[in-house]
């Protein structure tokens, strides 16, 4: 998803969105801990569902796609494939956090 925030919007509005993106990125580690520490499959699936739904709204569409892929596997109880998907998701979270909103 390519946002058009830089086109025709005021500087104040762009700064407001940037602040929201920064806040979202700052919360990603906590989200990951909730996912990786989830005791029940349904709890993990729900956390993955939320991440899949929100990441793209903040402009992190690849992150949302990784979460959506893991959510599907979590719902079907696919053990090894889910573990692999979570490794990919964690790598994407780390990438977003290291790049910040500039990425």
């Amino acid at each position: 998803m390519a946002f058009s925030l830089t086109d025709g919007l005021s500087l104040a509005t762009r700064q407001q969105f940037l602040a929201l993106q920064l806040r979202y990125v700052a919360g990603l580690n906590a989200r990951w801990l909730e996912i990786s520490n989830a005791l029940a499959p349904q709890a993990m699936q729900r956390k993955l569902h939320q991440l899949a739904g929100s990441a793209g709204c903040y402009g992190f569409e690849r992150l949302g796609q990784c979460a959506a892929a893991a959510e599907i596997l979590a719902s079907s109880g696919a053990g090894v494939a889910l573990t692999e998907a979570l490794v990919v998701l964690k790598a994407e979270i780390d990438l977003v956090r290291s790049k910040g909103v500039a990425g």
Partner: protein
Amino acid sequence: MSELRRVMCVEDDPDIRMILEFSLTALGAYEVCLCSSGQSALAQAPGFKPDLMLLDVMMPGLTGPQTLAALRTRQDMKKVPVVFLTAKAMPDEIAELMRHGAAGVIIKPFDPVKLPQELLMYWERGCGVLPD
């Protein structure tokens, strides 16, 4: 037809509520009421008098469709257009949501820049199709 001014957003994820508020207030210039659950929406809707409701589908407690059903039992909420917000994008799932009486369905992730215009479109459609 009057004007779309007040939008009630019902969503359990705080990060989605935050981006909805940004989109609909900073970009759409709507008056927004944010609710974290269907129960909260049912309690606040009569006072807020929304012109349109944006309802997340999958929520703990009352789901979006259950919240819509409860709203429709209230005389003052019978005609308020409702748009569902969902990550389920399969055509049969969208058709099922429309059968509940929604004016439209917004798929997550949504583009916050385009959302205000999409809601306006659904509001115009919803006002036109709801029965008396």
